[in-house]
């Protein structure tokens, strides 16, 4: 009597068994403990020292936000794992079939190639969720120390890292499917990762369109999630990239299709993905899930900005590497773009560092233009930017509120964390590996 299970469920089981049988997966799982541990212990210690030095929780501001002080550094271990460990697990799962000859056998099932890649992606996603138990353990420890938790920002950070893992998996699956050998796939994957870092560097130096493109690299995406910011355009673009990577993997998995046709199909996938990405850049909704609203102006200011109808043009004479430009972006413009979608920002500079432009009379000027009226300041703080805009718009500045984030200082050392992450986690990982590999027999 044949089983009634679907072929897809058989394939998912097979991928899960292959994952459990692969050493790379267990190495990643075991390594997650020390990786998270070193970040968490360092972050909690610094947080505790800073809390103890100040002695009071009043008015300490975002320095004592667990999101920035603890969770961003702790979860950065996931970013390292997604860049340097997860791709190898994914490559092993995709290339292993080709190396062993299993692919030639499995390909003879008339299953759509997308389903084959989907089964692998599902299993890899589940594997990543298991690996993310390490930072979740850090959350449990933090709570045990008496630390404050704000679930929306934690979910945002975790979501960002799941999305980042999706990008890593789809890239690795595409390269593993495209190439004959896992080593070539690994080199290609790491090249793309390094390429995105180079892109970030170019953006920092050149600014302009590079800056815009670099805003969608995995590093930039994760950084926003780590600050509790969810931008719909970033999420959609990441999903498009994940889909495109898996589609290319599916295209190249079909060994029985001529290479020329597979190449043209890949170009088609790339073109559709590029068009979708361009369309997504026009999507503006975003949500600030951080407890201290670090990505937003105070609510009264946001309400006041809503009264401004006309498009606001800002021309900042600041070079890409000028720290004032970074200040202006971080403190004011990134928040302004969220509150006032019809804002156009243009940077003007003759050089990348701006050092030799300081003598120029106009360097450092920030011009604002609204409804035909213009104003100029050199200040880069959020208050001065808002004040200039209110003056131009003829809108009364809202009264200051006492809506100040007081922070959650915690002067407690990371007791027991070293034992958990450097001892218990790796030991449990090794024991689970031995047990699981025996059970598959």
């Amino acid at each position, binding site marked *: 009597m*044949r089983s009634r299970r679907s072929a897809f469920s058989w394939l998912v089981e097979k991928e899960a068994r292959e994952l459990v049988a692969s050493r790379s997966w267990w190495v990643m799982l075991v390594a997650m403990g020390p990786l998270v541990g070193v970040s968490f212990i360092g972050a909690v210690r610094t947080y505790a020292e800073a809390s103890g030095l100040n002695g009071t929780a009043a008015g300490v501001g975002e320095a004592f936000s667990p999101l920035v002080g603890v969770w961003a550094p702790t979860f950065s271990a996931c970013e390292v794992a997604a860049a340097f460990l997860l791709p190898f697990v994914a490559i092993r799962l995709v290339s292993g079939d080709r190396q062993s000859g299993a692919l030639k*056998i499995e390909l003879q099932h008339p299953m759509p190639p997308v389903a084959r890649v989907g089964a692998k992606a599902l299993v890899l996603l589940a594997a990543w969720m298991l690996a993310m138990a390490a930072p979740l353990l850090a959350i449990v420890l933090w709570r045990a120390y008496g630390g404050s938790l704000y679930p929306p920002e934690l979910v945002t950070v975790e979501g960002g890292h799941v999305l980042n893992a999706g990008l890593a998996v789809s890239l690795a699956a595409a390269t593993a499917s495209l190439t004959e050998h896992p080593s070539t796939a690994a080199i290609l994957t790491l090249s793309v990762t390094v390429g995105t870092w180079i892109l970030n560097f170019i953006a920092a130096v050149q600014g302009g369109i590079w800056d815009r493109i670099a805003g969608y690299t995995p590093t930039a995406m994760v950084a926003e999630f780590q600050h509790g910011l969810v931008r719909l355009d970033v999420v959609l673009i990441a999903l498009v990239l994940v889909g495109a990577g898996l589609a290319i993997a599916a295209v190249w998995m079909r060994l*029985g299709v001529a290479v020329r046709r597979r190449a043209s199909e890949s170009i088609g996938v790339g073109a559709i993905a590029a068009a979708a990405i361009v369309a997504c850049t026009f999507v503006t909704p975003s949500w600030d899930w951080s407890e201290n609203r670090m990505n937003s102006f105070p609510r009264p200011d946001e309400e006041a900005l809503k009264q401004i109808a006309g498009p606001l043009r800002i021309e900042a004479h600041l070079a890409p590497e000028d720290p004032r430009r970074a200040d202006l972006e971080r403190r004011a413009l990134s928040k302004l773009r969220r509150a006032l979608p019809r804002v156009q920002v243009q940077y003007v500079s003759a050089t990348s560092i701006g050092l030799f432009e300081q003598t120029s009379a106009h360097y450092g000027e920030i011009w604002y233009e609204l409804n035909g009226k213009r104003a100029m300041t050199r200040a880069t703080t959020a208050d001065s930017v808002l004040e200039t805009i209110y003056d131009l718009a003829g809108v009364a500045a809202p009264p200051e509120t006492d809506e100040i984030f007081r922070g959650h200082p915690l002067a407690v050392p990371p007791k027991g964390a070293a034992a958990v992450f450097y001892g218990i986690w790796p030991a449990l990982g090794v024991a689970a590996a031995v047990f699981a590999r025996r059970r*598959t027999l």
Partner: protein
Amino acid sequence: MLQVSHLTKRYGHVTALGDVSFSIQPAEVLGLIGPNGSGKTTLFECLAGVLPADGGAVSRDGHVMSPAERSRAFFYLPDGVAPWPQQTVRWALAFADGFFGAAVDAAAHRVEGPDDGGIGDLVRVFDLEPLLDSRIGELSKGQRKRVLLAIGLLTPAPILLADEPFDGLDLKQTREIGSALRGFASSGRTLFLSIHQISDAARWCDRFILLSGGRVCGHGSLGEITGRTQTDTLEDAFLALT
């Protein structure tokens, strides 16, 4: 009856298969004979659709088969592979039965073996009982070959393409498995076997395709080929034709 017509495959300037045409009869054991590099594996891979052919067609009763129809008709067992090396033989057989059986059962393409063609019978026929809890990657070449044959026979495809099915088997195993394969053929399964040992081919096959340099240089039953070449044995006929 299936008709393979003008099958062509080139690797750059090298022609691996040149205008290969032949027919496959139901429930026969067809032997593919040729020296190393003659295109036997390429022919099987093109038929099974795991390698793109540059030209040619496979038709059934005058109707050109689509790639999907071909993948339902053929199942190819590659030579020299160790699929799912970390998994046990027991699991691999269950997987092949469930994975391939789930899709095609409904299409009623399945052809049963000498008994009921289930896992238990194939384990007995191919003497796999002692290997069931061994990992596939740890098996010898001959043991792997027996497992692969069982996997192939668990699939519902009516035509099994087996690349070097006797390679790695000892004399006793070759005879037992050859006899079992004949049993499967008499139950309705068509077996297309690539064999480099001509004596094995002569013993187990009903008809032969002789391949040399990517071209069919002879085909037919033993009597037809030896008669045409005025030789006594298949080996002599093969030498005369290549």
